[in-house]
């Protein structure tokens, strides 16, 4: 066991970790930030996506030790300062971009990373970007629509509200 320290959602966080502790486990078990979900063990589902030093990563495929000294943001840190949903979260609610909610934290974190690099992505760019985020509930329709809406694009012509 060794001490590992990082900044999580703007606050200093530290804990004891074995070398084999994953960042996802550190967040969930040491810090109680259970919004980061683990849906697979082959680094494909993306339910665990968080940002480390501003970049989207899969928290289940990174050791806690690797994040030593890093700035980590998770779904728990995404809402506005007053607690209201941020633009992406609000768009997901407005456009029914989630059902069971399990993939949702990773989807929101991936969407945030996408929009940071590409403020007005096309439908095709969004679909391609979500290659590493699986959703089994929504058929992706309303997720893609929500991300387009969050980027300020008119989605009224997309079928079915």
């Amino acid at each position, binding site marked *: 066991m*060794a001490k590992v320290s990082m900044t999580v959602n703007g606050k200093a966080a530290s804990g004891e970790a*074995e*070398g*084999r502790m*994953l960042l996802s486990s550190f967040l969930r078990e040491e810090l109680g930030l259970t919004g980061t979900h683990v849906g697979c*063990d*082959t*680094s*494909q589902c*993306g339910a665990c*996506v968080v940002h480390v030093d501003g*970049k*989207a*990563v*899969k928290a289940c*495929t*990174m*050791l806690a*030790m*690797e994040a*030593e000294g890093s700035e980590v943001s998770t779904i728990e840190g995404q809402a506005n300062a007053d607690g209201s949903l941020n633009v992406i979260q609000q768009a997901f609610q407005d456009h029914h971009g989630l059902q069971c909610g399990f993939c949702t934290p990773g989807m929101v974190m*991936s969407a945030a*990373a*996408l929009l940071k690099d590409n403020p007005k992505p096309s439908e095709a760019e969004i679909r391609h*970007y979500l*290659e*590493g*985020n699986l959703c089994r509930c929504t058929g992706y329709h309303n997720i893609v629509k929500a991300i387009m809406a969050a980027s300020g694009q008119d989605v009224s012509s997309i079928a079915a509200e």
Partner: protein
Amino acid sequence: MYEFEFEKPSTIAEAVAALADEDAQALGGGQTLIPTLKQRLAMPSKLVSLAGIAEMKGVSIADGVLTMGGGATHAEVAADACAPLAALAANIGDPAVRNRGTLGGSLANNDPAADYPAAMLALKSTIVTNAREIAGDDFFQGLFETALEEGEIITSVRCEIPEAANYQKFAQPASRFALAGVFVAKYADGVRVAVTGASEEGVFRWSEAEAALSANFAPDALAGISVDAGSMIADLHGSKEYRAHLVAVLAKRAVAALA
């Protein structure tokens, strides 16, 4: 995962020293190694992260040579490498994987369905390690086998910028690794064609196609040329014949994209 120690050196020399311990293993971005450890398919005593080594970072182009740090992430290669390689890197895995996975890690692993090996064979690469320089043509030695010695670290990679190049990948529907991938690079002294994903022997240069394209750089030059289906991989996602067919289709598409 089995328990292991974790170390994060800040220089190549420290990393080499750390890797001298028995059963120590280098950790690039971990995008293959960590899932492998989760399945308990490897049992290192110590993981030596290469992420803190500044001298292994960076992607730059100068005098017709592309130089990439072994620790460059796929995302960094996608951002800063020459166009055909950047396009290849932008299609590895997914965005989160590209933010962690590294060029050196991928090359050292030599997954037969990985994309980079095709580029390395096609782009006249030199694999630079802490100990020596290895020609790309000598580096890949079959499935998951490379010329690297125990504890040897890929510190950087050099490629000769081609006149033109294109990579065509046909994705396996589940993993999105290459079911087949063909990298075509045109140089003044000839054309190189490298194939990944398809062969039971791993990545290879397709010499018949190279000869045909060196003589006539046009899709039609490949008419009637095919790889031997017998040496192709057969699995749930495609037969030997299908993979052999895909190689021909992708090679033509790569040339057509450059014509």
